[in-house]
Structure formats: structure tokens, C-alpha cells
């Protein structure tokens, strides 16, 4: 970035400047606190008993109640929901990355009649609210016998994550040099081999970014399971937690509810900490020329 290229002219820090820097830090710190404080409070509260929670919002737990976590994991069924989510998100992620990259590859690298129509049809899928489709989708799944099943939910995830995946990878495949695929063809590689052994490995950085964003999006998905996956045994985390939270209104185990929130956020936090550079980089990518 060109910002770094300029050589400092002078290093003279005036009082006015310092006060601006200080006030910038103050404002940014306030925002950082608004972001962190609720998260830390949730973590702390997850170790309290229900009576402690109602006694005072600030009091530290007398004794860390790990029992809240086991309670959430088993009694509230969070453990079950957790594995359902891993199955659905895992299989959907693999499938959508495979199908999405294949489709993007064809659209980006081959000129054929209908190419533009398919491309814009995909693009349109990015704009339209999912709610428009949800009612007929319910019956489409029912007709296939996939309603209230985990594979049905996974397939739906794939279909709805496809436009974003194709759109993003399309740009990526277009940037790859044509000389390399031509060289592969001359060396006798067929189209399939060219894709799997040459193009796909070259698109790795793009695939990684899209995979991370798809993971977050699918892990966090809420509407599709709520409408299409109503069998409690098959709940995924997001909807299971929502059900737990609304049932907690009566027979309250607030400690377990807080623990369930922590359990759901933890995998996301891990992915975020490991990949945050890549994630933020991909956000910036769209704005760069």
C-alpha cells in the first residue's frame, strides 16, 4: 500500500496532536470495551449457579460451576446438537466447495452459449431474500423425503451457499493464467485432470478464504434449520440454543444457558483466532482495485 511509501518529513509531536491521538484511543477503547465486556461477562456468568446469577451480575462465582457445562451438554442436548451441526456443516462445506469450484471454473474458463445467463442467475441468488423461497422449499424437501433430515438440511445449505461460492471463485479462476492450462493440454492432460491437478491447487488461496467464510455462514445459519428441520432430535446448535433459551423462561437453569452460549461460540472463536488475518484480508479484497 502506498501509505507506507512516504518518508517521514519531521518527527515533531505537538501537544494538540497528542491530545488527538489520546482522544482517538479513548473512543476506540470505549468501543473495544463495549465489544469485549459482554463476552467476558457471559463467560464469567457461565460458571455461576442460578441463584448467584440472580444475586448480583458482578459477583464472581464462589466456586466455578463446571457442572453447568455438563448440564448444558447432556440435559439440554447441546452435545447432540453439536454433533448434528458438525455433520451438516462439514458435509455441506465439502460439497459446496467442490460443486462451487467446478461451476465457477466452467463459467470462468469456457465461453459457451448460456454462460452469462447462468452467471447472472447465480448473481441474482445473492440478492433475493431467502424468505421468498422458504415456503415452497419446505414442500420441495418433503416431496424428496428430505424434510426434517440432516442430509436434507445439508443439501439445502449447499444450494444456498452456492451463489456466493461461485461468485467469489469465478473471479479467482479468471485471474489464473491460461498458459498453464494450455501447457497441461499439450502435455496430454485431459480436462478433468487439468482441473483437479492444475487449476484447483492453484486456486488454493481463494478456496481457503471462501471455505472459512462458508464455515462461519453455515455454522451460524438459523432460518433454514428453524423452518426445515423441526425434529428436535435433529436440531443444529443455533436452533437448539434458541429453543433452550426460550424454554429457559419457565424451568430456569440460567447457568447452563450461559454455558451453552459459550460452547457455541468457542469453535467460532478458535476459527476466528486462527484465520482472522485471512478473514479480514478477504473482506478487504473486495474493495481493492
Amino acid at each position, binding site marked *: 500500500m502506498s*501509505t507506507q511509501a512516504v518518508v517521514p518529513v519531521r518527527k515533531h*509531536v505537538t501537544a494538540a496532536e497528542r491530545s488527538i*491521538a489520546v482522544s*482517538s484511543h479513548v473512543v476506540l477503547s470505549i468501543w473495544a470495551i463495549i465489544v469485549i465486556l459482554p463476552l467476558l461477562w457471559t463467560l464469567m456468568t457461565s460458571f455461576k449457579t442460578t441463584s448467584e446469577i440472580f444475586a448480583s*451480575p458482578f459477583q464472581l462465582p464462589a466456586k466455578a460451576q463446571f457442572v453447568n457445562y455438563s448440564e448444558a451438554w447432556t440435559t439440554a442436548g447441546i452435545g447432540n446438537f453439536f454433533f448434528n451441526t458438525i455433520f451438516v456443516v462439514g458435509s455441506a462445506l465439502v460439497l459446496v466447495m467442490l460443486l462451487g469450484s467446478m461451476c465457477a471454473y466452467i463459467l470462468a474458463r469456457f465461453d459457451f452459449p448460456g454462460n452469462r445467463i447462468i452467471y447472472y442467475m447465480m448473481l441474482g441468488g445473492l440478492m*433475493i431474500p431467502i424468505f421468498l423461497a422458504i415456503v415452497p422449499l419446505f414442500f420441495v424437501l418433503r416431496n424428496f423425503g428430505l424434510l426434517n433430515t440432516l442430509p436434507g438440511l445439508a443439501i439445502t445449505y449447499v444450494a444456498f451457499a452456492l451463489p456466493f461460492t461461485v461468485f467469489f471463485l469465478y473471479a479467482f479462476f479468471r485471474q489464473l493464467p491460461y498458459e498453464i492450462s494450455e501447457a497441461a493440454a499439450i502435455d496430454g492432460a485431459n480436462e478433468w485432470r487439468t482441473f483437479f491437478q492444475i487449476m484447483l491447487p492453484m486456486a488454493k488461496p481463494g478456496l481457503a478464504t471462501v471455505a472459512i467464510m462458508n464455515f462461519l455462514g453455515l455454522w451460524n445459519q438459523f*432460518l433454514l434449520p428453524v423452518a426445515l428441520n423441526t425434529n428436535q432430535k435433529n436440531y443444529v446448535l443455533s436452533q437448539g440454543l434458541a429453543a433452550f*433459551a426460550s424454554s429457559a423462561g419457565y424451568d430456569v437453569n440460567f447457568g447452563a444457558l450461559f454455558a451453552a452460549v459459550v460452547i457455541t461460540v468457542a469453535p*467460532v472463536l478458535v476459527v476466528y483466532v486462527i484465520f482472522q488475518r485471512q478473514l479480514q484480508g478477504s473482506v478487504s479484497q473486495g474493495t481493492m482495485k
Partner: protein
Amino acid sequence: MSMAGNSSTSWPAAPTSVSPPPAADRRAGRWRRNLTFDKISLFVVFLGLPLALYITFVVSPLIQAVSYSFTDWSGFTADFKPVGLANYVKILSDDTFQKAMYNNALLAVVVPLIIIVLSLALATLVTVGGASSGQIRGIKGAGFYRVISFFPYAMPAIITGIMWNLIFDPSSGLVNGILTGLGFSNFKSFPWLGNIRTAMPTMMFVIVWGFVGFYMVLFIAAIKGIPAEIFEAARIDGAGRFRTAISITVPLIRENVQTAYIYLGIMAIDAFVYAQALNPQGGPNNSTLTMSQELLTTAFNKGQFGVACAMGVVMGLMTVLFAAVVFTVNRVSGGKDRITLA
């Protein structure tokens, strides 16, 4: 409807300036000449599979929804008859749905505005908050602020909602704890989400909390894309920080702001996850009820699928209308003579 369809997880990240392949591409007619088995099988599998899936589970339900919206379909019986525009007349004159439309419209106007102003301000502080003499520098610890602020965006929206629901809890929540601790004793067990005046602003706050960091990172990247010389020149001409932000930064990242506005508007016209987490019943006097909540109730609790489809179409039309308004406002307010950097 972005990836996985939840518009609260829209991705403005995707590159937006992909140009269509040039017509006179050197590879253009080649595929036609050598249509080998190799290539045909590639097309069938690579294009056929994803397309079949996409058409079955996305495109066809969309088209069906539009056609069902003109029928009295109840879903579980095979026979239904066309009713013309009756469903639309019904929902548009229904008090509850009107209230929901108003709430979504309010969200679509207010929430993007707050998020964009706040995230632009924070992004400006991070990028040009450093010393004003010499090199334009970002503020110290910029990376820290960025990483922290971005995290809520990665959290499941439903968790964000549930967490804040607990934080705004009248008796055991953090907010009232802090306020009473500071001596505002009238906030003791104040029901933020159960009061007709505060329920909507509280929900807006939660949505803002979830999105500001994402747009802050987006705007930081956009501001960094502006050549440093421009800021230098403005400074030499005597422009202060505030003036620079208003007259230089904002006009130069106008396109990004427009994109952000549209994505946030689409999210606000949905807003299902937040509404459901904070007030599943629609809040006091339906003050936080959204069209999406009403749609699901109408479909799956009342079994009025034709009416529900009409609601979906109204949501779709509102989204298109919103995008059109943003485009128009941007053009009329001077976006058409866009300053380009050569």
C-alpha cells in the same frame, strides 16, 4: 440472500468488479470445434450437478412462491384455486403485517445509517488518527482494535441475540447492574425489551453491535486504498482532520459506502434472527415484530401458505425498492460525477 441464504451474513467481500468475458476471446469458438467426450463429460458433471441443485432448491422455490402468492393454497391439500390479488389486499390491510412492515422499514432506514456512520468514524480514527505531521500513520494498536471489533461479526447472530437478551435481563442483566451501580436506581429491573418505547432501540443496538466491526474493517481497507499523497495535499492546503474525513475520505470511498448500505438494508428487511432471539413473540404491542416472523407464523402455524408467499414477495419487492432508492440517492447526490483516481 447471500451464502447459506441468511442475509444477516451477507458478504460484501466478494469482488464486485468482475467484467464479463470479452466477446472476441481467443478461446471463444474453440470449445465448439473440439467437443470431445472429455469436454462433454466435464460440462455435464461440473455444470450440470451444481445447476441441478441450485435450480431445484433455490430457483424453483422462488418461482413457485410467486405463483402460490396468487392462490388460497393451504399447503396440505392438493386443491387450491387462484384468488388474484386477494392475498396482497389481505396482508396490506392487516394491522399486524402493517406494523411489521413499518418496523422493517424503520430498521432499514435507521440501522444502516448508524452502522455506517459509526464504522466510518472508527475506521477514520484507526487509519488517520495518528500524527498529523509527516507521514500519514495509522494509530498505534490499530491491529488490536481491528481484531477485537471484527469478532462479533463471526459470532452466530442467534448467539449475539441470546447473549444480549441475557445482558438486558431486567433483574440479573449486566446493563441494569451497571446502571443501578452508577446510582440510576430507577433502572432497577427496567425491562429494556419489554417496554414499548425501548424495545426497538434496544434491538437496533444489538444489530449495530454485531455489524460495526465488519464494516469498520471494510472501510479501513478502502481508506488504505486511497493514495497517501491525497491526504498530504489536503493537509498542506490546511484541511483539518474532520474536514479531510468529510471532503476527501467519504467521497473517495463512496462506492463502498453504497454497497454497505445495500447489504445492510437487505439484512434489516430480514432481521429475523435478532427479532427472534430478543422478542420471539414480536415484543410489547408488536413493537419489534418483523415481516419474517409474521411470515413463518402465517405459514407454519396458521397453514396459510398462499398468504405467506405473498408476504415473501412483499419482502422481495421491498428489498428491490430499497436498493433502487440507495442507487438513486447516491446518483442524485453527486455519485455520478464520481471522482476517480487515475
